[in-house]
């Protein structure tokens, strides 16, 4: 009876496993691999030697050998990842830098100047105009409940008016109760609620901020954009004050030769409501393509606060009255800098950014 070619397999496997464990670097593993599981390994030699066996014996031996190979290969893979981790750890260790030891005075700093975002600097200019007119500036959250974004603004649940805004809904609470604010108007509600709670009416404030609408970005629209909104709640405020504030702002921000006009419009949260237009800043009112030859371009919406809004926030409309207005900051940017494609504002291309100071 001849000896099975696999008589020593157990020992051979143990030796191979020991060899795997002995591998101490990634390179060593790569070099040793052919001798452990590859063509030049004892496993491959044994595989060839099985050819002389009877079919049945060959099958049994083949299975046995396959099992041994799997054991060795598994060990090799474990070792491979251990060594990779060790190599990574070693690399990180050799790269280690104690940032507490940085000698700041020794760091060389290239002479260069940065550039502010066009939207941020425009927002600041707008804020400054309103601050000079006596407005404070208020911030509000970007994720809102449907109450603040819609219902308190006189847009009840499932009301068709909600369709005026392409809303991003947030997966939270009941469906469609949490939204990315579609306008800065919810900040008005926060302000009025807060003022009622603290007894701190009147309010004269502008609210700039980031808004979101589910609208595929194109040359004229971005899904993420910025608005600035104004709110005045005081005694004796009339539509004349609204028109006056819009006019003063227009002349101060756009220039003395640019004026404003109001025309009727509809917004659920104001009544009477108006769209406000300003003299076309391109042709200065002469008529051009931008203004469809009317000499006027639309800037934003405004109106006297709707009694329903006062009711939602608990303000007595017989004692107080007020107005709100709002418009897009990107629109001002686009008008002033004549940017053909708004998407330039979100591409963060240094060649675009560096034009503005």
């Amino acid at each position, binding site marked *: 009876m001849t000896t099975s070619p696999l008589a020593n397999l157990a020992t051979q496997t143990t030796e191979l496993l020991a060899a795997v464990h002995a591998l101490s670097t990634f390179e060593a593993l790569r070099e040793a691999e052919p001798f452990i599981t590859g063509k030049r390994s004892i496993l491959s030699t044994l595989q060839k030697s099985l050819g002389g066996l009877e079919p049945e014996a060959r099958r049994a031996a083949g299975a046995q050998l396959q099992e041994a190979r799997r054991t060795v290969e598994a060990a090799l893979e474990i070792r491979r990842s251990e060594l990779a981790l060790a190599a990574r750890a070693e690399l990180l260790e050799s*790269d280690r*830098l*104690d*940032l*507490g*030891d*940085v*000698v*700041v*005075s020794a*760091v060389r700093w*290239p002479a260069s*100047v*940065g*550039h502010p975002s066009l939207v*941020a600097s425009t927002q600041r200019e707008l*804020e400054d105009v*309103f*601050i000079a007119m*006596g407005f*404070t*500036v208020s*911030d509000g959250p*970007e*994720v*809102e*409940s*449907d109450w603040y974004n819609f219902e308190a603004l006189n847009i*009840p649940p*499932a009301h*068709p008016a909600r*369709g005026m805004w392409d809303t991003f809904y*947030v997966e939270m609470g009941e*469906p*469609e*109760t*949490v939204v990315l604010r579609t306008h800065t108007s919810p900040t008005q509600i926060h302000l009025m609620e807060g003022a009622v709670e603290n007894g701190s009416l009147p309010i004269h404030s502008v609210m700039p901020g980031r808004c979101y609408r*589910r609208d595929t970005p194109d040359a004229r629209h971005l899904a993420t954009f910025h608005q600035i909104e104004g709110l*005045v709640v*005081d005694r004796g405020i009339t*539509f*004349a004050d609204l*028109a*006056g*504030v819009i006019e003063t702002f227009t002349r101060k921000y756009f220039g003395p030769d640019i004026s404003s006009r*109001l*025309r009727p419009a*509809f917004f659920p949260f104001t*009544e*009477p409501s*108006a769209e406000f237009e300003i003299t076309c800043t391109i042709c200065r009112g002469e008529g051009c393509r931008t203004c469809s030859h009317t000499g006027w371009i639309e800037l934003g919406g405004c109106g006297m606060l*709707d*009694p329903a809004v006062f009711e939602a926030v608990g303000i007595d409309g017989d004692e107080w*009255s007020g107005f709100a207005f709002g418009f897009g900051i990107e629109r001002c940017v686009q008008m002033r800098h004549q940017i053909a494609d708004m998407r330039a504002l*979100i591409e*963060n*291309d*240094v060649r675009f*950014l*560096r034009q503005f100071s």
Partner: protein
Amino acid sequence: MRISLSWLREFVELDESAEELRLVLDDLGLVVEGIEHVGEGLGDVIVARIDEIRAIEGADRVRLVVVDAGNGPLEIVCGATNFALGNHVPLAPVGAILPGGFVIAERKMRGVTSNGMLCSSRELGLSDDHAGLMILDDLITPRVGQGLLEALSLTPDIVFDISVEGNRPDAWSVAGVARDLATRLGRPLSSPPLAQPDAGESSSPFASAGIDAPDLCGRLTVSVLRGVKVGPSPSWIAQRLQTAGMRPISNVVDASNLVMLELGQPTHPYDASSVAGRTLRARRARSGEVLTTLDGVQRELAKAGRGLGDTGEDCVIVDGDDRVLGLAGIMGGASSEINDATTDVLLEAAFFDPMTIARSSKRHSLRSEASNRFERGVDPQLALRAAARFVEILRESVPSLQWMADPLDVWGETPHVPTVVLRPSDVERALGISLSHAEVSRILEGLGFATRLDRDQISVVPPSARLDIRSGAAGRADVIEEIARLYSYRRLPRRTPSWPEPGGLTDRQKLRRHVRDVIVDLGAFEAWTPTLGSDADFDFVHPGTERVRVTNPLASDESVLRATMIPGLARAWGRNVERGTGDVVLGEIGMVFSHPLATENPRTTKGGAGGLVALQLPVETEHLTVVLGRDDDDATTAVAFWAVLADRLGLADVVVRSDESAPRAFHPTRSASLVDRASGATLGHVGEIDDQLLGQLAPSANARRLGVIDVDLDVLCDPSLATRVSHLAEVPSRYPSAVIDLAFVTPSSVHAQDLAFALRSTSELVEDVELFDVYLDASLPAGTRSLAFNIRFSSDERTLSEGEVVGAREALIATGATLGAVLR
């Protein structure tokens, strides 16, 4: 909404030019988005007959057509294919000028000369139809060589494209726009001719009507029309519809559309023979019912929709067998459609609850001209007037049409018509101008409101069409808007108000501006990266954490609200590297979001219907994130950037403490926390972006290091967490300072800034301690490095003696020793 001037003129006398009318309409809030001159520039276009069609060699998109326009054969190259020999089509001969100023000239194409152009309906500005040539045989009996205008009995007209606001359901018609114009211009308003029901046989019991859901259907009228002959409409009706942007279909359907455009009442004609029991009923759809609408789509009815308040209510019209015929007010089904064989028509004119229509229409994604009007609110009193107008119009083509007596008229619930009381000061309090009772009454009555002067109050009852007018204080605002609108916003006074409260910024807003200024001064370009990112980006930094997700993102990789700006800025930098402009520092101030479940103090606010539900919302934190990608930038320059920023912000002592606490986006061994020494609060982190992460975010930035600073502005703005230097000035001593250098061999566990702090606190004589060198060398004991400090001593009272300096130096050395730092 497209409205032609000729149609408006049937209601009110208008001599103004189109441009003059545009100004008036705009000022009424009926904004004119475009003015079209229909039929203008068609004087040169004539009727031609197709006599021959030949292929052109080498051309597969155009053919040569030989036509006769009365002066013998004319060869024309034509790209359309929708015509046959013998058809009559419009020809613009050489020299003609088409609408839009397009001049027709002789043109040579594929070696063939084209002597004019055969036109589509759109090229002539007659409709939007651009499917092929306008085939005149479908419309009229044409005569070769005749002028097109004459052939079509066309008169040039002007079409206004008017945008009607959501609160003006009454203006969604020619009559409504005409009413505004007549009131503004002080001219009388005419009514169109209306038919009367025939005397004789009553509609009931021939047909019947009923309302099972009075809250959904406020009125259902059914007129029985007999002796109908379905055929084409007269050309003036076809033209009216076309200029309004609708396609003529048949005299019955056209009459329905014409009435809707003219008066604002949608009507629905049914073929009476296919309506079981000649009965129309309005009821709630039941769960499980299906309907195939005219557009061929099968719709599941009464299925609750997504979103607040949509219970899935649908109002349907059923016949005598309770079979669903149509989705009320939105679209009918195919089974009872008017067809060529129709002789008896049941004409439905109804009022449906606007909210029900709006929700159904949204839920089924089905908008129609009818639903657009019903969801805004159609005048509940209008139904039978509309039927009378329908009959009048249909009699143009079917003079013998019978309208059975006593049209069926069933009522459900209709909106309550409020009485709005204007108190004497109301108008002035709202508009800042006092208007006489006479002026107010003239305006309101012109618009159809009933007014009654009661002492000094005016009681106002809106017309039934004005469903937008509410009651109480809101109603007053609605009525005042109407007064202001008709008076003209432009005539109202302006006054710039002032108030004693000063304007200005909060401390937080000032600090935000300051931070922005400083980073720009330091060379940063301010970026704006996306708030919405991918799961993968989120997982890079916060694997497995709850995230704030948008349910309806525009793209799947824009579905998660960012929890850090680092991936966005790294990508923005990477794209600049690809463009060869990556030698730059980018910074952003913006919001980052954490899920309520992933934070200790979630924000709670009110939400849900009526704001009655307490909702947990994501916590929003404002961060400043800066990435430094210039050539030699790394963690070191990031620390330097931070140091200058901290100095400019007046932070007292923030320790750059290397540790493993930085978020995963940071390099594990090249990052540090920014810890306020006094409060112990962490302001943020500084270091480099993890090299493996950077490889994924900015693959083109091969092996470059990217420095990064991330600061929580909420912490930075809180003076109890981010300690500021004292605002009390320290006047430097007038006596000379003594300056020494001390180098300590310091265990790596001892932080350089801690040692400096200890040294500074050792003696009152220490004016300043500054690290100027760090020395690492094998000659030093393992686990140590040499820290060299530049130290200034001084006293406010005297010049320090040598002995005092030596003493102070000894004290500093002793301090060092307590921390294990040995003088080198």
